[in-house]
């Protein structure tokens, strides 16, 4: 591996790390707000029809955030033409897909 391609490689990874960090931070923030508001409404016994969807939305935001992180990694590695890691990340995504599929069957 030449020095030039290596430093280019490192820069791509650094950028990816920062973007992933921002996605995760944003997801947690959104989930926190939804959960806090939902829980407050729940505690003050406002219509459950209002508080319950908020709580579920917060929990789902929490669950979706890491999935989004994996999807963005696929795109990041593909843009860097790093096919091996594109494949690796797709494999992780496939396992998560398997989980959601198995969850659907549970219902």
């Amino acid at each position, binding site marked *: *591996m030449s020095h030039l391609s290596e430093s280019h490689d490192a820069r791509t*990874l*650094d950028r*990816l*790390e*920062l973007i*992933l*960090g*921002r996605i*995760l*931070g944003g*997801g*947690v923030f959104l*989930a*926190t707000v939804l*959960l*806090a508001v*939902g*829980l407050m409404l*729940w*505690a003050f016994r406002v219509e459950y029809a209002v508080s*319950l969807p908020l*709580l*579920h939305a*917060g*929990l789902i935001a*929490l*669950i979706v*955030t*890491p*999935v989004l*992180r*994996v999807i963005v*990694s696929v795109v990041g590695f593909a843009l860097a033409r790093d096919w091996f*890691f594109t494949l*690796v*990340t797709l*494999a*992780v995504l496939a*396992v*998560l897909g*398997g*989980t*959601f599929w*198995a*969850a*659907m069957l*549970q*219902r």
Partner: protein
Amino acid sequence: MTALSVLFVMGGGVVAGVLGALLGLGGGVFLVPLLTLGLGLPFRHAAAISLLAVIATSSMVTAGSAGRRLINVRLGMVLEIATTLGGLAGGLTALTLSHQTLSTLFGIVTVLIAIVMLHQRNELVAVLDEAADPGWLGGRFYSYERGRHVTYRIKRMPVALGMSFLAGNVSGLLGIGGGILKVPALNVWCGVPMRVAAATSSLMIGVTAVATVPLYYAHGDVVPHLAAAAVLGVLAGSRAGLWVGDRARAKWLKVLLACVLLAVSILMFVEAR
């Protein structure tokens, strides 16, 4: 009654979050027994809540440490194949096991964790000069301990994959993050510096939990208001714990908490009878 249990869960989340951050654990090890033994929740309900808290902690910690090159994104991705498979398998298995069996398993794993915690050493792995080739999965970062940039290479990849699968499996079955199993293994056997192992593990536990939680969700094991309380508590607690943890590096704390874990495991065995 329910409002009281929400407060109890939130307080428990804060405690679990503080302890988790201080010890570099997810906090689930403390949250699950609090929910089952303290609140009398069925094991799977406790595990589901704990896993949601693990996801929140993972995202928060990773967002905080991003940009310092401590997270090895590539190593994390490869190992995530193993942890998510483990999580999926663990979750599917958990749905077939009884409260008693799961409590027994939790008791056994907490004993193991207590032992690992007492023996945990910060192995100084062989690092190379900055200019050295890190190999396809290694990396470089700024080491505060050494005051310079260092390079590390990954050894024994099959061991790392095996331990990751096991950690994912335990995570899915019992609702704990599994970092306590991966981090020492990566550090001692696979040549990953401690801080990198911990940061990369924090990245992985979130996606690992996501490979399990939808199963519990669909099975009706997620109690929304208790989960929300736990997540908010753990987030606040781990933030506080991280803030304190930089200063206080108390060794006695580990010994104390190993004793707590041993007590927890005894209670779990009693619960399982």
